[in-house]
């Protein structure tokens, strides 16, 4: 294992982990505070990516298209919350799974109807298409570094929001004791809508940033949704800190798994077995991680509810 | 002859000792009342006795056998039965079926996949007998969720009796009851005297003084006194402050 490869994979893992955190943060709050299993969270990510691609094409600038798309997705998210999802908070998990599953079907098909079945082009802005020397002799794509920067900034901003503001206090109170949050008054509805809007905006940001790296296509939301759920469960439902740790853990384990497990297996096992088992093991590494965490701590690493 | 022996039981939550070296005996056939102010640790103690909470130290013996490490269902099969302070029934079952489910727990294996339980008349007959005994016979076909609070409490007792226990642990059976309902519950428990060994947790002092053979007083996780009713009563007069406060 060369140092260059190792550093590169570390950065890849952190970059992917930070983007997972953007999704997982919203998911864990909605989960912990409103007690809603929102399978359609990934659809907001998809919508964010599609809007970014469209608005970037329309305005000719990624830097203009991205914030517009983030705002638009936040508005869509808040409308969805106020019009529909709000009525699911008091329902059982099964109803929530059914309703948000239905939303995924609708969102995916509507996306196909509007944008077609082909994936949309969304390219790394020219300015960022080069690479930067992170260590002497070790180059790393500038755009991925930007993702790490943005992800870190957003994580810090969220940290301040959750720990230092009144809104954050209410949210934390809600995650640890829902009745208390409900008892705190009428503006709880507005708070929920706002939290949902922020979650949607974070989804859109992740969709926009990852769009140029992965493909902007129908179904992109579900793939990452499950990873985000894994993150939430590993971190402990309702805990933003847990989501952060879980996201980095999942990002790094997944990246390292894919990069190193097949090669490592080949060194120890017969080639036929290694070729068969390597990719499987790499693909399931994060699920194994989750099962191990749940086996050891059935409430996740940072249980928000005592 | 003791049926239940609790020895030096300790349970801590964080730094707080909710159960702080408790010793407690329940003799065969007696009604043993456990009293104490709110927050004394009664429910924590009961949960450890029943096996839903693991103690940090100490032991629990049942008929001479150490059951400290056994799970709740294993203890139940040995002869523990519990009624809950906060009603805990099967709301979508009828009253009769609630009791049938409890009877079924002690009559042969329930890993039976083919024969309808409804055709096992033995189960329903045994359940009806228990409903008769607990004064619920007329409500047999009602859904459990439709019952009044007092009836819920009666059904709690019926479920406990249906498992044919030797030790009955009744956690505040009179909680939230009116005078008339309380009186009915007192006579129901009176009727169980001698047949079962009973550990009775109760706030209603009149009921406790009428029913109990012996009383243990739990304060701040420790048993501060155990003895016959008269003795504790005398003692209790000294502690008028505590009892007065508790009855208010």
């Amino acid at each position, binding site marked *: 294992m060369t140092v260059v490869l190792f550093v590169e994979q570390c950065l890849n893992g952190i970059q992917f982990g930070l983007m997972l955190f953007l999704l997982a943060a919203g998911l864990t709050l909605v989960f912990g505070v409103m007690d809603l*299993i929102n399978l359609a969270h990934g659809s907001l990510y998809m919508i964010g990516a599609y809007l970014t691609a469209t608005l970037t094409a329309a305005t000719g600038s990624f830097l203009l298209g991205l914030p517009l798309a983030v705002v638009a997705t936040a508005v869509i998210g808040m409308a969805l919350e106020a019009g529909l999802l709000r*009525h699911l908070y008091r*329902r059982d*998990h*099964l*109803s929530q*799974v*059914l*309703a948000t599953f*239905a*939303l995924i*079907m*609708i969102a*995916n098909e*509507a996306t*196909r*109807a509007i944008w077609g079945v082909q994936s949309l082009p969304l390219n790394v802005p020219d300015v960022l298409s080069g690479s930067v020397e992170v260590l002497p002799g070790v180059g790393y794509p500038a755009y991925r570094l930007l993702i790490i920067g943005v992800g870190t900034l957003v994580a810090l901003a969220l940290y301040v929001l959750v720990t230092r503001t009144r809104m954050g206090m209410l949210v934390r109170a809600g995650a640890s004791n829902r009745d208390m949050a409900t008892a705190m008054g009428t503006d709880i509805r507005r708070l929920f809508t706002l939290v949902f809007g922020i979650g949607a905006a974070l989804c859109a940001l992740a969709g926009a940033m990852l769009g140029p790296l992965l493909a902007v296509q129908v179904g992109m939301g*579900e793939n990452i949704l*499950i990873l985000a*759920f894994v993150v939430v*469960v590993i971190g402990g439902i309702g805990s933003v800190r847990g989501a952060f740790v879980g996201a980095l853990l999942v990002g790094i384990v997944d990246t390292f798994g894919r990069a190193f497990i097949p090669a490592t297996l080949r060194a120890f096992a017969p080639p036929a077995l290694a070729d*068969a088992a390597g990719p499987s093991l790499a*693909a*399931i590494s994060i*699920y194994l991680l989750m*099962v191990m965490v*749940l*086996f050891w701590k059935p*409430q*996740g690493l940072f249980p928000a509810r005592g | 002859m003791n049926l239940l022996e609790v020895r030096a039981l300790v349970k801590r939550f964080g730094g707080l000792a909710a159960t702080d070296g408790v010793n407690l005996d329940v003799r065969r056939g007696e009604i043993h009342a456990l009293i104490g102010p709110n927050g004394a640790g009664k429910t924590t103690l009961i949960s450890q006795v*029943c096996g*839903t909470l693991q103690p940090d130290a100490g032991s629990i013996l049942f008929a001479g056998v150490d059951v400290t490490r056994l799970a709740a*269902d294993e203890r139940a*099969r040995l002869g523990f039965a519990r009624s*809950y302070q906060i009603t*805990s*029934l*099967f709301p*979508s*079952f*009828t009253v*009769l*079926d609630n009791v*049938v*489910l*409890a009877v*079924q*727990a002690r009559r042969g*294996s*329930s*890993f*039976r*996949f*083919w*024969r*309808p*339980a*409804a055709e096992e008349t033995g189960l329903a007959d045994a359940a009806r007998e228990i409903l008769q005994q607990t004064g619920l016979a007329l409500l047999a076909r009602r*859904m459990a969720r439709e019952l009044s609070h007092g009836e819920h409490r009666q059904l709690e007792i019926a479920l406990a009796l249906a*498992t044919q226990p030797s030790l009955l642990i009744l956690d505040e059976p009179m909680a939230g009851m009116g005078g008339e309902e309380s009186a009915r519950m007192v006579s129901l428990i009176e009727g169980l005297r001698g047949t079962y060994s009973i550990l009775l947790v109760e706030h209603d002092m009149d009921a406790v003084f009428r029913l109990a053979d012996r009383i243990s007083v739990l304060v701040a996780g420790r048993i501060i006194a155990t003895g016959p009713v008269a003795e504790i009563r005398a003692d209790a007069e000294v502690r008028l402050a505590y009892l007065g406060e508790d009855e208010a």
Partner: protein
Amino acid sequence: METSGTLPGARLERDAWWQRAAPLAALALLVALPPLANACGQEFYIGFASRVLIMGLFATSLNLLVGTGGMVSLGHAAFFGCGAYVVGILATEWPGKGELALLAWPAAMAASAALALLIGAISLRTRGVYFIMITLAFAQMLFYVALTLKAYGGDDGMSLARRSTLPGIDLASDVSFYYVVLTLAAGSLLLSGRLAAARFGRVLLGIKDNEARMESLGYPVYRYKLTAFVISGAFAGLAGALMANQNSFFSPNMMHWEQSGIALVMVILGGLGNLWGGMAGAAVFLVLEEVLAAFTRHWAIGVGAILLAVVFFAPRGIAGLWAQRR
């Protein structure tokens, strides 16, 4: 409370005559379907009906878990896919003997049951949302493992050379295959009904209602739940084996989490905990899909909208509507 509509086992009284007659009428109709379809020149519907019955069997197996036992699994497709892969792998590796239905189908059930034992043993230590997520995680693992099985088509899946063989019955014929599926589905439904009304089913219902109380009554709850999980997995495996035969094809998509989601949708649509819920839900879902697809390419929007309407206006599914009418 209309108990017969919601909890078949929670009540010891007998159904009204027409409630007992309805299944027989449905069965008669299903038996008569192939000749009717042939007479109308609509052979397509025979294959379609087989698909409905197979998905209905799959959903019924999930209903035992979710509706009777209260264990909400979002990974049931793992067992469905496992059944299909066992049939596929046996047929590929051992042409001839491996294609014997009497060998391959029980093997599929056994393999799915074993898998369920393993997954259930770990998953059932968690509860609620964590249980939902851990079952999902296990199913995803199998999905990714299937993706990398290059010898069996990788992510494209693989076609079967032909359907399994049964002595005396030509399964290659869609009509014969339909009758075999119908027999197995009816048998499974009968079994599932007996199970729900027997002691075991009532214990499961009790666990769904109040798990802690079941424990304090002396029931080893974990063992009952695990047994239900294994039985449910075995029948999902049978459904998977049949589906691989119906389509002469198996692929990782059969294990995709969307498949688990659809099964859950069918169960809720039909009626949670209702004996007929799985079958009714599968029929309504697939017919809906078919009808809407005739009108628009974007039928999924319509299906989604109808599902939303069910959540908000008929939370107890079709069985709930049925019970309210009485």
